[in-house]
């Protein structure tokens, strides 16, 4: 079936045309999205409609005929340029925001287009049927001339993007700097708008005026998930756009009842979904994994420190006796947000697997020697930061525990060494005494909930 499709000249034309359109839209869309003007294409495509309708009227009145594609495209481009002009005028002459300007230009120009279309329908000589394709698109009906036009548009876009890559990059990232070295961002903006106009007007006939916007926005957003480098983003967006165009065109060629423009957009949207989850630069799954890992690590670290402080407070008791789960749970709350999936028990399981704790008597755990070393370092880190907050930031000893809890997991050894030096301590390795009271729940409290009242303020023991 695919081979049969590949042999069909019409199908090849459509697939090539859609792929070129998708690629060109991807390139332009990347720059537009970075300029935070993702929806300018939307306004332009709507603004092109009255231009196309006027071109049809002019064509009908003169000897060119209403269906001359070049004339219609020229009209569309002029309409889009008028739309850009209206947006720039409104931006300069009023204090309206960009979103209101885009929405106003879009709806009013489209309204004008519909007015003109209804004029055309009312004329005895007019056949407006071909104009509808600009609204919904008719990629499947693409002929070689249309594909050539798309090729010219795509070639122009690629050429300009390559020649002006440095300039466009600076425009997107640091407009002020580009001004300061004597470039004129207005001119560059004009070039970018011209590119948008070209791909929008050329693409409208293939996928329709609403869906051509999708081809500008979606591949660009998807590419952003894969890379932080502009050049890579542009290439990836072009590839995603071209691939969605080709796949969508093939699907609607194989199943002609499926509207091609919509299928192209849905393929692009599927690419975006995959990119949002698995993208190597911004993909959500890497964030989830990193977050899950750090949550797990934090829980173990909290467990170790709790054990250390309990041992320290109970120095009279015989070591190696073990600490009961309930005591740990009563001393420190392992909240759901701190540890997904099981709280205290998961942390204990993990610490046991890492060889940091071992089971003692019934339902108790004991620090191993590795665990004791680790927990001493963790406690030292925590208390150093607490002392630092008390001495340097003037925070009350009763208030430092929580803040140190949050920050202790991300302190680098270099920073800790500096903190220790600044506090006059010889080393960051040994745990200083705790600056505040550590509550040791007695046996009677094991099942009872922890006293919600704050601990009474104490003087600094140092």
């Amino acid at each position, binding site marked *: 079936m695919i081979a049969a499709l590949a042999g069909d000249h019409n199908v090849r034309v459509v697939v090539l045309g859609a792929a070129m359109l998708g690629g060109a839209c991807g390139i332009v869309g990347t720059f537009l999205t970075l300029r935070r003007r993702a929806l300018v294409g939307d306004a332009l495509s709507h603004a092109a409609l009255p231009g196309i309708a006027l071109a049809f009227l002019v064509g009908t009145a003169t000897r060119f005929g209403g269906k001359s594609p070049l004339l219609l495209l020229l009209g569309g481009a002029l309409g889009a340029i008028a739309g850009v002009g209206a947006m720039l005028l409104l931006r300069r002459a009023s204090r309206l925001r960009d979103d209101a300007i885009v929405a106003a230009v879009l709806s009013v120009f489209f309204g004008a287009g*519909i007015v003109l279309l209804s004029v055309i329908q009312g004329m005895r000589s007019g056949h407006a049927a071909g104009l509808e394709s600009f609204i919904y698109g008719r990629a499947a009906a693409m002929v070689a001339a249309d594909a050539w036009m798309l090729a010219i548009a795509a070639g122009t876009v690629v050429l300009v993007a390559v020649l002006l890559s440095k300039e466009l990059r600076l425009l997107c990232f640091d407009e002020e700097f580009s001004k300061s070295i004597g470039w004129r961002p207005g001119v560059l903006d004009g070039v970018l708008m011209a590119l948008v106009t070209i791909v929008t007007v050329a693409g409208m006939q293939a996928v329709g005026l609403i869906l051509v916007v999708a081809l500008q*926005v979606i591949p660009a957003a998807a590419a952003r998930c894969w890379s932080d480098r502009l050049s890579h983003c542009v290439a990836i967006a072009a590839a995603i756009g071209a691939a969605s165009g080709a796949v969508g065109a093939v699907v609607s060629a194989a199943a002609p009842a499926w509207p091609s423009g919509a299928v192209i957009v849905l393929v692009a949207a599927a690419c975006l979904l995959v990119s949002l989850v698995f993208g190597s630069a911004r993909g959500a799954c890497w964030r989830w994994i990193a977050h899950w890992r750090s949550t797990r690590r934090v829980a173990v670290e909290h467990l170790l420190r709790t054990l250390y402080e309990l041992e320290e407070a109970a120095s009279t008791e015989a070591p190696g006796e073990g600490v009961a789960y309930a005591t740990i749970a009563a001393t420190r709350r392992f909240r759901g947000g701190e540890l997904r999936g099981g709280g205290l028990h998961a942390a204990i399981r993990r610490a046991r697997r890492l060889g940091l704790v071992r089971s003692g008597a019934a339902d108790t755990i004991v620090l191993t020697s590795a665990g004791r070393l680790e927990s001493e370092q963790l406690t030292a880190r925590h208390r150093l930061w607490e002392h630092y907050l008390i001495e340097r930031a003037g925070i009350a000893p009763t208030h430092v525990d929580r803040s140190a809890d949050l920050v202790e997991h991300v302190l680098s050894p270099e920073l800790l060494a500096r903190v220790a030096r600044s506090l006059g301590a010889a080393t960051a390795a040994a745990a200083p005494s705790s600056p505040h009271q550590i509550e040791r729940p007695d046996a009677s409290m094991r099942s009872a909930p922890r006293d919600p009242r704050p601990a009474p303020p104490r003087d600094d023991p140092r």
Partner: protein
Amino acid sequence: MNTTLLADTSLPWWSWSLDGWIVVVAILCASACAIPGSFLVLRRLSLMGDAISHAVLPGIAAAFLLTQSRASVPMFLGAAAVGVLTALLTEWLRTRGRVEESASIGIVFTTLFALGLVMIVRGADRVDLDPGCVLYGAIELTPLDTVEVSGIAIPRAAIVLASVLAANLLCVMLLWKELALSAFDPDGAKSQGLRPGLMHALLMTMTAVTAVAAFESVGSILVVALLVVPAAAAKLLTHRLGAMVAVAMALGAAAAVIGHVAAIRVPALFGMGSVNSAAAIAVVSGVILAVVVAALWLGRQRGNVAQRVLSEPPRGPSPEVRRESSEAAGAAAR
């Protein structure tokens, strides 16, 4: 598009039973849209109106496919649900997907629109569910679909839009303070315990319901125009929120009346039949905005122009300021 007639001079150009109702429907639509529209413009969410009005297509198609009928209640519910979904997805894409705001709007509504097109073409092909009908609406046909209310035939669209207008007014009057504070200062609202997120959801629901109710009769493009354009003009004319909503409603209503009359009369001057009223109303609202912007701009410029022509140094202080300062200097000398 649907009732384009060739000019027929033998008929009166205005008929109260048709054009009167069309204008009433258009005014109701304009007033209902101006209320959420004002808040959208203030919160820089104007494009949400555009997005919602395009994105409801799959909701309508789903309701149609599920019920296999063109009953309006399921379609209304489906469209409103997808409208709210659009707002949620946009927000989700912006915060979780870290996509820039206007890009996330563009992604969501175009994808939903494409989905809707596929659903309609694949599922509802054999029936008269035309995407064109959703896009342009058929305000000229509204007087033909009437409901008897105590002996008077009232167009169904008028009843629907009047109830939406009433609901919007009620919502805004009950939650005026909350909506206003959330619009201008979401953080302040949060600190007062007002939950601006809830207000955002309410605004999105209001927009979705209004857009759906309106475009059933007047088409989605007119909805966008009536949501944003009068509100934008009103924002330029006043600095008070209450006045802004009122002015937006008035400008929208004016656009409705002028637009429909122009749709009938202006083409007749060239010997042509009437044009699409909904689109003409959109154009007239744009003209109103252009006039407001131009008038304000000229008002600002006039000071400069007069100064340049009248005063001796081209960019010196205004004559009054100079007189005052010279008087002050004279007083000091005395």
